[in-house]
């Protein structure tokens, strides 16, 4: 028995290692690349041994990219800031609109309710390109092209359905009698929503916000079409490293490391919070 268990444990260990390698190796390799010059990266055969350099990071942060063809201005830090701004604003707006809507869908039966909820969800099925062309026409007409407002608005296509559907599920899991008890104790509907419903759905709201933030952060095509360099996030900004004199792999890698870091930190932070929320908020008893 001991023998079987050891073999099992070893097998499990090997499999886990393989899975981890498969998923983590590219990230690890990118991380290494970000400290190499283009020559080191393009060496054949590739080698993990090299003299580390901070050149890539310095180029990104200073905004000056030196290539054989000459110096280029890159707006990477600006792009990073745009990403943070666009994603946070989008999630913020989606929360303000989506959480009350999710509550309404969870608690009240109204005409066309299910249809409206499904229509919102269907925005997630449609490829963004389907709406982009008409949107870009509307946006230039309305003067929303190349504005933060316009982008945050379009990002609602990504963030709002996520928040609405995840948070709705959480609200549905809360016994309405918990809210009823609070209401009959002399509290208004609005106060019940604020003091009882939202705190009880907090783990769900946190999870949905995190997902929505990551999805917004990773979006590429909306900003590519609807914004100019000035308003573009990192996903689009990375295109600048495809230069006339070749692809700047070192800078691309360090740009990836820098742009992944905020979401990674946020996810790590929220994960702790999510687990806590899930284990404490045993609503169903």
């Amino acid at each position, binding site marked *: 028995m001991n023998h079987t268990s050891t073999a099992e444990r070893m097998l499990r260990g090997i499999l886990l290692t393989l899975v981890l390698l498969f998923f983590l190796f590219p990230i690890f390799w990118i991380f290494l690349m970000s400290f190499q010059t283009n020559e080191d990266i393009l060496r054949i055969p590739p080698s993990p041994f090299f003299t580390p350099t901070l050149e890539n990071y310095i180029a990104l942060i200073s905004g000056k990219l030196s290539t054989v063809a000459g110096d280029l201005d890159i707006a990477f830090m600006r792009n990073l800031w745009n990403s943070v701004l666009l994603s946070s604003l989008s999630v913020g707006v989606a929360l303000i609109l989506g959480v009350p809507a999710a509550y309404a869908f969870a608690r009240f039966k109204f005409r066309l309710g299910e249809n409206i909820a499904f229509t919102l969800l269907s925005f997630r099925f449609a490829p963004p390109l389907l709406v982009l062309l008409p949107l870009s026409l509307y946006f230039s007409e309305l003067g929303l092209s190349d504005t933060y407002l316009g982008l945050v608005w379009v990002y609602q296509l990504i963030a709002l359905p996520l928040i609405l559907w995840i948070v709705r599920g959480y609200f549905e899991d809360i*016994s309405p*009698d*918990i809210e*009823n*008890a*609070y*209401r*009959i*104790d*002399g*509290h*208004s*509907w609005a106060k019940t929503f604020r003091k*009882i419903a939202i*705190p*009880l759905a907090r783990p769900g709201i946190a999870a949905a916000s995190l997902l929505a933030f990551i999805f917004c952060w990773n979006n590429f095509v909306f900003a590519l079409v609807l914004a100019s360099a000035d308003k573009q996030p990192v996903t689009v900004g990375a295109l600048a490293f495809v230069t006339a004199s070749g692809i700047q792999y070192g800078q691309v890698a360090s740009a990836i490391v820098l742009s992944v870091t905020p979401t990674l930190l946020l996810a790590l932070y929220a994960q702790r919070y999510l687990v806590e929320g899930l284990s404490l*908020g*045993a*609503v*169903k*008893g």
Partner: protein
Amino acid sequence: MANQTPEHATGSRPEVALHLNAVDKFYGDPSNPVVHAVKSFSMAVAQGEIVALLGSSGCGKTSTLRMIAGFETVSRGEINLAGRRIDSLPPAKRNVAMAFEGYSLYPPLTVRDNIAFALKAAKLDQNEVKRKVDHITALLEIESILDKYPSSLSGGQQQRASLARALIRKADLYLLDEPMSQLEPQLRSVLRGRIKNYLIEHGLTSVFVTHDQTEANALADRIAVMEDGVLQQIASPAELKDRPANLFVATFIGEPPMNVFPARLSVNGGHMQVSVEGTETANGFSVDLGQIALSANSALQDGAPVHLGVRPHSVAIGKGENLGILVSNQWLGDQTHVVIETAGQTMVAVSYSRVEEELGAKIAFSIPARAVHIFAEDDGRALLHGAEAVG
């Protein structure tokens, strides 16, 4: 429908506290409702009175309670409480306390904080809060769980905590939704008495929903029996048993349920007899009701088809002129339930002594005139109760 004032509510404060006037509840589109859950429900509850809404599931009792609480809108009709019309007020403005059947405690608060919640919100003095919490939790035997969180409680504990939270605060009306459904039977019977005393002691007007007759009988001054959204009868437990308003109430109240036979009246110069016809294989039987004053009730005509009802406890076994066949005989420790086949159907009878006859044997039984209930054949309304018609 008889209105009887509860003993403890007479004299001091007999005025009406809660009044429901022709209340209807439709679910779905009002113009084309899917369900008509409550139909023209009217009821007056006196100050300090305890009323039970009793009925099987889906009869509309919970909808009625939730309309009083304000969780459901009133589709038609009005509700008045303590002299105010409340049916369009939000729950917060109705000054009603409610104990819930299911999960209703605030998860982030301990049981103690849950119970004291309304008192603290009302800025009551801390010592006073503590005194009240101690009192009510001792009454409901939940002192040991005061510092626990709702998620770690059993259903019965949650229910008692919810009950404590409702009873502790001041309100014009106390609504209890199946207040003891999740408790152990023993605890239930103990708490029934205590809760009733508490309600009477503090003069609390209350309406509670139950599907348990024993609970309704033990707790309530009056019981409102509901079926299919309609209030069938509201009366004291004794009255429901002795003078059921119709066939539904007659067969719903009482355990085992009332025996009902199709029968025919014969009236001869004020002398009335009700007969149940026999079949080819079984004898019928009849009950002589003697002289009955018939002036008012025209439905009691000679030859009129009716339903005859008799409670199992009132059938006398082993004596009398009628014969049936004993088909089942169960001694339950303190009483015997026998099933007698007569007039082509079965009749349940309860005796407090053992019945020695063999199964399949002929057994004599008699039905006292005082125990007879007569109902109209068409709509089942009560036409005559032997106990009051027979001298």
